[in-house]
């Protein structure tokens, strides 16, 4: 560490000494001024955050780490910045608000240094140091913010995968598989597996795949559907595809996909009455005896 850097760090640490509360207050004020009032983060939380971050900056500067590594390697400072950014990412703050929140501390620190010294040379090197430190913190905060958002996106897509492929029992031995959304590789496997497993578990004889909620049926989707139908038949059950809306019917016909070997119906209601007929001989005996 060069002598001038040591001097600059001492200058900043000296300016912060005993004024941690004041700087934290000023930071909270600045954030409120720069960014729109935050929706998800309460004033008291902001205050706690400010105390922790200002204290971490002070201990970071006192540590023997070179300035360009403080943010990356100083445990307290790194954790404080990361937590601050993640909290904002999760509460839906904008990326601008998040990086401004960290960069606002730069202004608060500069003001503190300015009040503590009149020497312009010292002031300049202290300002350089603060800039270096807070820019690194800003970059870290932005990285963390993006990671936090990506984590949310991944979690949501996993949830979608689970939610979107229910198999429901509609009638005696009739299963319903309402498909919603697009069928791409990851979901297709689940869509294939679920009804087959349910046919085995519930000894069903008809499976109705309803595609009312599928916006686009192209050749890839049609192929998945045909394979599912084939697999259902191999298990000894019948398969009906319902919910073929007029535009989808026209598109399938023009694409040249031949679904004539598959039982298709316009609505789920049609498919259900067809399925009930198909299973008529195998309806479970009714509990109450039928009076004649």
């Amino acid at each position, binding site marked *: 560490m060069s002598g001038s850097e040591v001097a600059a760090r001492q200058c900043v640490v000296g300016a912060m000494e005993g004024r941690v509360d004041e700087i934290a207050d000023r930071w909270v004020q600045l954030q409120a001024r720069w960014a729109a009032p935050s929706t998800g983060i309460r004033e008291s939380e902001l205050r706690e955050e400010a105390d922790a971050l200002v204290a971490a900056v002070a201990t970071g500067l006192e540590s023997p780490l070179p300035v360009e590594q403080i943010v990356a390697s100083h445990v307290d400072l790194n954790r404080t910045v990361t937590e601050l950014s993640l909290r904002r990412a999760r509460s839906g703050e904008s990326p601008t608000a998040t990086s401004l929140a960290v960069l606002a501390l730069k202004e608060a620190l500069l003001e503190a240094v300015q009040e503590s010294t009149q020497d312009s040379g010292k002031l300049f090197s202290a300002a350089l140091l603060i800039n270096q430190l807070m820019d690194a913190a800003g970059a870290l905060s932005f990285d963390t913010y993006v990671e936090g958002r990506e984590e949310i996106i991944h979690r949501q897509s996993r949830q979608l995968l689970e939610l979107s492929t229910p198999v429901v029992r509609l009638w005696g031995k009739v299963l319903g598989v309402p498909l919603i959304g697009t069928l791409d590789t990851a979901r297709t496997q689940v869509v294939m597996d679920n009804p087959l497993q349910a046919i085995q578990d519930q000894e069903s004889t008809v499976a109705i795949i309803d595609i009312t909620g599928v*916006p*686009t*049926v192209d050749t890839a989707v049609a192929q998945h559907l045909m394979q599912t139908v084939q697999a259902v038949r191999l298990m000894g059950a019948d398969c009906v595809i319902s919910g073929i809306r007029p535009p989808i019917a026209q*598109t399938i016909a023009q694409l*040249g996909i031949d679904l004539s070997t598959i039982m298709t119906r316009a609505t789920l209601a049609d498919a259900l009455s067809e399925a009930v007929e198909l299973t008529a001989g195998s309806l479970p005996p009714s509990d109450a005896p039928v009076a004649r």
Partner: protein
Amino acid sequence: MARRANTTPADATTPATVGASLTPGDAVSEPTTVVALTTEEDLLAVRHVVRAATLAAGFGLVDQTRVVTAASELARNAYIHGGGGTLTIEHPHRDGTKGVRLTISDEGPGIADPESALVDGYTTGAGLGHGLGGARRLMDDFEVHSQSGAGTTVIATRWAHR
């Protein structure tokens, strides 16, 4: 509707082309949209962007579904066979009729013989083989430019029918 004009035999020097050349007089109004096709999620994005473009051109529900399906086929071809590419959406108009033009380009191995690739049932992978020919039936104007080893470009236009 199937047009088989301007067919050049596929050899190593001439790019093979299927379909009529575009009338140069078509005016294209801004803005054009470009979507990269590098991941499977991009195929989802394609369907959304193309659906929005057909809505903007005032297409009915059936035509919207047609164009979105064709875009889905062509984008999937570029993603699976071409190793990724781009989709460009333009809004041309001809004689007061609005249209949506899709240009899908990839830099993959190309199609050696586009004419036979348009025939139903033709496939080099595990697909049904209806994608390219089906997409041509769903659109009004359809051109395939391809050269072995130099990628494929498909230009497809659908006009608003009243």
